[in-house]
């Protein structure tokens, strides 16, 4: 059958005249991306709530008015995503069923080549326990110069699977009961926030075995003023905003060092009940934190999104700028490089791009009408 088709093509080609103004174009022809992406590229993670099996990551150049869509990766069933900064690799944690929504379950970390976006490997995760949570960067992290990949499990028993990612080999599973999420800390380890207001820290040896486990004194109250679970790292300091508007810095260089917290909310702001709100609400550029803020925030409004982005200087611990968004934001990310841009996933689920002075640059639609690109990953 294919032979017949090929001969049909040849037959048609033979009948073409040689007067072509446009030359015949090669088939097949598949794009390749640069090994080192420009600073303005981001990965927009479309959680796709109405069709979770077809979640995806879309690579966008937020500085571009043309050819802004660079490619995509699939990320099935509450996928997780992280880029390697030492290898030309991208990692997607995902879950498949042999019959789509039913049948045998397989959890994998899929490994993609960064420039071809071809799948170059896969690590099958044991135990059918990969955490399925709404897209969250801290459900999968790289540590120790990207040598080890950590994947969160939730059954609801909570643990972390340790993978030697160079060898594509599962090394260990570390239980972290009472605590959750993976915040890289120390030379080769991670920390997790705990429901009792403490932070637990685990150090691993080269074989992924636990060599040390510490737990802090309680330093926040998860009932009264919880910390958001998605912090922003600047160097080794993780900045956790709280529901009511504090910033809790934690130095993750070694065992977590709880630094003094400070408030983003002035007395004036408090009168208008400004609070942080949204999904991915904090990002950073240089020494500056960018936080998505909501006016008239209240109990339960911490995931509603906000109408302004406030910029704070971390050394002075004070606000240096307010950016009013054209369309309310749900998630934000600041790109790196010399000309950073502020990318905002609007509550309309399209991407709004601003310069750091707050001027709207462009609006980008990511995919199908149901797309929900609620996690933005700047180039790492």
């Amino acid at each position, binding site marked *: 059958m294919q032979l017949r088709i090929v001969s049909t093509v040849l037959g048609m080609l033979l009948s*073409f005249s040689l007067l072509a103004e446009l030359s015949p174009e090669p088939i097949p*022809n*598949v794009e*390749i991306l640069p090994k080192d992406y420009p600073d303005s590229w981001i990965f927009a993670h479309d959680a796709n709530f109405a069709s979770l099996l077809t979640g995806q990551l879309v690579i966008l150049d937020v500085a571009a008015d043309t050819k802004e869509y660079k*490619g995509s990766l699939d990320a099935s069933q509450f996928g997780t995503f992280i880029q390697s900064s030492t290898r030309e690799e991208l990692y997607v944690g995902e879950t498949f069923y042999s019959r789509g929504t039913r049948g045998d379950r397989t959890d994998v970390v899929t490994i993609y080549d960064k420039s*071809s976006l071809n799948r170059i490997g896969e690590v099958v995760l044991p135990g059918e326990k990969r955490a399925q949570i709404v897209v969250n960067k801290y459900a999968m992290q790289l540590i120790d110069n990207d040598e080890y990949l950590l994947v969160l499990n939730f059954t609801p028993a909570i643990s972390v699977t340790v993978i030697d990612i160079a060898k594509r080999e599962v090394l260990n599973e570390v239980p972290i009961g009472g605590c959750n999420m993976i915040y890289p800390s120390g030379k080769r380890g991670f920390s997790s926030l705990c429901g009792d207001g403490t932070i637990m820290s685990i150090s691993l040896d080269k074989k992924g075995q636990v060599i040390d486990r510490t737990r802090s004194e309680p330093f926040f109250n998860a009932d009264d003023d919880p910390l958001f679970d998605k912090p922003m790292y600047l160097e080794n300091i993780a900045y956790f905003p709280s529901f009511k508007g504090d910033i809790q810095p934690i130095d993750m260089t070694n065992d977590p060092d709880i630094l003094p917290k400070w408030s983003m909310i002035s007395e004036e702001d408090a009168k208008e009940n400004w609070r942080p709100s949204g999904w991915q609400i904090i990002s950073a550029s240089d020494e500056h934190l960018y936080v998505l803020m909501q006016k008239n925030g209240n109990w339960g409004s911490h995931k509603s999104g906000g109408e302004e982005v406030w910029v704070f200087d971390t050394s002075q611990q004070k606000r240096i700028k307010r950016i009013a968004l054209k369309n309310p934001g749900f998630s934000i990310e600041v790109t790196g490089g010399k000309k950073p841009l502020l990318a905002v996933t609007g509550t309309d689920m*399209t991407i709004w791009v601003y310069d750091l002075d707050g001027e709207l640059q462009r609006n980008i639609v990511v995919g199908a009408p149901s797309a929900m690109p609620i996690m933005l990953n700047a180039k790492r």
Partner: protein
Amino acid sequence: MKWLDNLAEKSTRKLARSSGRRSFLAKLSAGIVGGSTIPLLPVARASGGGNSYPGVGSQSTGNLEDPGDPTSCDYWRYCAIDGFICACCGGSANSCPPGTEMSPMTWIGTCRNPADGKNYIISYNDCCGRTSCGRCMCNRNEGDVPVYRPQQNNDTNWCLGTKSNVYNCSTGVVLGIALE
């Protein structure tokens, strides 16, 4: 809750009905060779400037001999295309997005290049192995015949002969000039 409302509103941002046809295309043959495409809703057509797809950047071929915007459903090469336009999805008019696979079998149309007035054979190779791109849905049916003539039909998923049959987007590759 506001964002949910807005989301619902956005999903009503639907594709418009097509209008305006090029009758000259009706006379041209569109043949298969294998074939490409997936089908769909009749789509948004340019009204005035731009490609008429909100949130999608316009493009230019930068080639006077190949005029038009490859992200627009009105681009001359797309006279018998049916699916998501690859130029909006990380590919171009004649290339697939990274990480996908181009279908070796293609559905072929004959489209007139307004620059030289000549008719070109266009091969609508599908790009496969990624879930639907979802951007720039474009469906033009000049020369389309029902599926019992598969070689002239664009309702078929032409991700055949590829490692994955999952359809991502469609290209429009110039194969050569058609004899008048």
